């Protein structure tokens, strides 16, 4: 089955269905007698609830239920699970506020859910929601993390001192402080990592379906990790997992955002239990801006120390991160779990990071593509460029001078990352060659002739992927020899079905058309953590591979028994032996395995296998992005003229899908750098970017054709030699874009750039630089 073998640019098996309009997203589902819910949300960023009157809403046409926090409290369901495990600076436990599905005493962000109105149609639920009357006593609000930590700031949770959720420290402080104090040269900068929003094209939605007779809850929803979701839901509802079924259909993108059990999941389940009928909730886009989790959002101060030869001697980073109004398990992980990326591909011996997480009157946060990686990559890769500028060294040369050489592997960085492999200089050179780095100054000069400011920016970033963690997979042959493949992973568009079928087809010789792929249903999937953190190819792929290995091992024994030989050879789905001219296909063996007469004494009937792959170590995808931009100095408009990437994501399973992941990530990284930002009004805490009319989404016109070249160094941390690819594009794009824009403007005296670098901001920087004394 070479056609579908790993490494081939196989077109996706899920596509024909999706291209025909046959996707089954949660909002496409209609269950008999289903009712529809609408959430009444807080219009205030911070307010005490004085009175809730739902009598008029309850009497409105079509309304079947109106639920408040009081109903929730009476139901026996609990609060949503919250993040834990961190400490505060004094060593005390992190502050963990209660996270109610419906709040009844105080609202803490614009969009905080207060009442759930259920009616026979969605429109009538929304009509009735307008009749809910809530008296609020508005309170001062704080939306910025630094302001939240200042003395006298409004307290999001009254008993949480200075709004501080946790403090996370990493690295060797004494060594780092000493190295910086002794350094020949130190570059210092403050960075603002903006707040952005996944803006998946499918908004979130859920259907709750409680079966009273069986006393069992089914939840159809948007998620990333079905079994983890069920576990958290079980903790929320105080119901054993065996009474819960969680089902994900097609997921219209997630990027981390849909990975939690949100308030509305509880609401539809409580409403369904109350009414004994299914209840659906689907966010409108405007609602999604108020109700979804946001990502990133920190203020960082960083220092990079260099010796006289330009070698990095230490890196010190302090950041104050926004954790939103509440936390959920993992919702704050972007603040601490990927800081390792700060160490970069460099030999920097001493690194220390100090992160403070603060509550604010804003939406909860969740991982968003990269989850701390792009933030960290931005800081180190900007610092390297700033250092290059201050020392008058070429930025590519400064990187080269500090890169970890392949001979030094495995390499323990000054932070948590311990690299197993990587050929950074080779990958850097590959990108420099692709972009014709040497010829750049001529292109810059030509652009000047046209009145444009051309700049070039490099980033070389590395991140952790896949782990440590585990994933499950199951291969089930049926009686005719076709296969059901069950995965613990859940695709939100990455193409798991294709890659997994490639593995199974290639190993077992069954055509992909005869393999049915199943995921995301907790009644079907036996084990697995789900999808996230660029882990599926490595962990899910290895699990599928292991399951096929088990199938092959058993099938060998059956085939040998049937061919009456000691041992058989196996290749491309066919069992043979030099001792007989007979052969058996995998399909024949699978069919035969259903009858005990074909099996060795004592062997179990059937040809099925499940497998769990556990990686004790993560892998480290890395790569180089080089961007050339041109800025129109009169308008500040930036156009991307060239974009090249050389990437080491290990063994490439499907080059077509890999490119898709990288380019998709780049679009989100560039989007954050030049246009996207969630903004709140400082005083009122109102969201200022509450629809696509104000939140600027990247369109096709923003990008040139992006050239990507894979330069793999296989890893031994998993069975397939692959490294994660889902987040890499986004990680490299942010700093490369910033570096290119600063380079275009540096001759004017511009030293730094804020995100998003909108045309107006760029124009103002140019104007200010012109006015500044030379």
């Amino acid at each position: 089955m070479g056609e579908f073998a790993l490494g081939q640019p196989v077109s996706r098996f899920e596509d024909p269905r999706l291209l025909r309009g046959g996707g089954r997203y949660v909002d496409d589902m209609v269950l008999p007698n289903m009712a529809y819910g609408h959430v009444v949300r807080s219009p205030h960023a911070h307010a005490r609830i004085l009175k809730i009157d739902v009598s008029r809403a309850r009497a409105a046409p079509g309304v079947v239920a109106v639920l408040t926090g009081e109903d929730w409290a009476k139901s026996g369901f609990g609060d949503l699970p919250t993040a834990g495990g961190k400490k505060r600076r004094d060593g005390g436990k992190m502050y963990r506020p209660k996270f109610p599905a419906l709040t009844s005493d105080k609202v803490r962000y614009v969009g905080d859910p207060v009442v759930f109105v259920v009616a026979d149609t969605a429109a009538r639920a929304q009509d009735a929601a307008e009749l809910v009357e809530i008296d609020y006593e508005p309170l001062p609000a704080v939306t910025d993390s630094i302001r939240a930590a200042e003395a006298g700031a409004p307290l999001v949770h009254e008993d949480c001192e200075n709004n501080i959720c946790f403090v996370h420290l990493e690295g060797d402080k004494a060594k780092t402080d000493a190295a910086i104090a002794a350094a020949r040269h130190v570059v210092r900068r403050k960075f603002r990592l903006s707040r952005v929003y996944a803006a998946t094209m499918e908004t979130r939605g859920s259907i709750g379906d409680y079966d009273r007779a069986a006393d069992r809850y089914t939840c159809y929803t948007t998620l990333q990790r079905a079994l983890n979701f069920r576990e958290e839901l079980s903790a929320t509802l105080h119901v054993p997992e065996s009474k819960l079924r969680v089902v994900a259909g097609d997921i219209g993108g997630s990027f981390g955002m849909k990975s939690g059990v949100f308030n509305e999941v509880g609401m539809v389940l409580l409403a369904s239990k109350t009414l004994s009928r299914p209840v659906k909730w689907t966010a409108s886009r405007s609602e999604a801006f108020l109700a979804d989790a946001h990502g990133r959002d920190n203020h960082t101060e960083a220092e990079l120390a260099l010796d006289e030869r330009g070698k990095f001697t230490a890196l010190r980073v302090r950041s104050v991160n926004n954790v939103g109004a509440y936390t959920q398990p993992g919702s704050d992980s972007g603040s601490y779990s990927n800081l390792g990326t700060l160490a970069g591909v460099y030999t920097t011996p001493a690194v220390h990071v100090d992160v403070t997480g603060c509550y604010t009157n804003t939406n909860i946060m969740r991982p968003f593509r990269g989850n701390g990686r792009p933030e960290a990559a931005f800081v180190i890769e900007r610092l390297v460029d700033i250092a290059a500028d201050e020392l008058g060294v070429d930025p590519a040369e400064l990187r080269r001078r500090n890169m970890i050489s392949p001979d030094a592997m495995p390499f323990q960085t000054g932070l948590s990352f311990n690299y197993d492999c990587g050929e950074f200089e080779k990958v850097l050179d590959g990108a420099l060659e692709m972009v014709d780095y040497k010829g750049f100054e001529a292109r810059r000069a030509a652009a000047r002739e046209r009145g444009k400011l051309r700049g070039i920016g490099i980033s070389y970033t590395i991140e952790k992927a896949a782990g440590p963690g585990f994933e499950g997979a199951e291969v089930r042959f049926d009686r005719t020899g076709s296969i059901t493949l069950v995965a613990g992973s859940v695709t939100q568009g990455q193409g798991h079905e294709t890659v997994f079928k490639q593995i199974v087809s290639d190993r077992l010789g069954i055509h992909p058309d005869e393999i049915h792929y199943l995921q995301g249903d907790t009644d079907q999937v036996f084990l697995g953590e789900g999808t996230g953190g660029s882990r599926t190819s490595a962990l899910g792929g290895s699990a599928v591979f292991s399951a096929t290995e088990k199938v092959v091992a058993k099938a060998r024994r059956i085939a040998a028994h049937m061919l009456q030989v000691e041992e058989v050879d196996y290749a491309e789905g066919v069992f043979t032996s030099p001792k007989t001219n007979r052969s058996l296909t995998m399909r024949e063996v699978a069919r035969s395995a259903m009858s005990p007469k074909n099996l060795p004494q004592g062997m179990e009937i059937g040809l099925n296998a499940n497998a769990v792959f556990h990686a004790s170590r993560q892998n480290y995808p890395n790569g180089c992005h080089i961007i050339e931009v041109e800025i129109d100095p009169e308008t500040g408009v930036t156009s991307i003229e060239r974009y090249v990437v050389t990437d080491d994501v290990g063994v490439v399973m499907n080059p077509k899908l890999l490119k898709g992941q990288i380019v998709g990530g780049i679009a989100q990284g560039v989007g954050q750098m030049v246009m996207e930002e969630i903004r709140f009004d400082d005083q009122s805490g109102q969201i200022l970017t509450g629809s696509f009319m104000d939140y600027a989404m990247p369109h096709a016109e923003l990008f040139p054709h992006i050239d990507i070249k894979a330069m793999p160094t296989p890893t031994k941390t998993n069975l397939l030699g692959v490294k994660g690819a889902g987040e890499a594009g986004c990680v490299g794009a942010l700093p490369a874009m910033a570096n290119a824009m600063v380079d275009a403007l540096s001759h004017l005296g511009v030293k730094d750039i804020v995100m998003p670098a909108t045309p107006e901001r760029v124009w103002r920087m140019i104007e200010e630089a012109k006015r500044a004394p030379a």
Partner: protein
Amino acid sequence: MLYDVKMTVNGAAVAGQVEARTLLAQFIREHLRLTGTHVGCDTTQCGCCVVHVDGVAVKSCTMLAVQAVGRSITTIEGLAAADGTLHPMQEAFREHHGLQCGFCTPGMVMMAVDIARRKPGADEKTVRHELEGNICRCTGYQGIVEAILDGSAKINAARINSAEA
């Protein structure tokens, strides 16, 4: 009050009763249960809901069902040939990895077919510009643009061939 609506959808006469405020997208999804047409925003910007009304691309979230009375609608479900063969544009999207999560895809493909009709021979820059009303969050657009260029070339080559024949 409810209004009687009759129109042609994917070649078949359909009828229903709707409120005045029922959007064409809602009528297609909820009444006809053709759920390939998606709704991704409420400000007429994302293009997930694009269908063809009398042969031209229209955002079905910004048209009332009552406005579509008597019109002929094609949705993503009506694009493939009767025997199930994918439309050349659908095939091109698959070939060029023009979709990931698939949510923007139906609207994207319907717009792509419209672009191929209006702008035969369009270059990459033009195609990118023509996608100003369609948002994709997964692909970074590269696969989509490649698919439209290729699909468009194939559609227009077939058109020329059939005109010559």
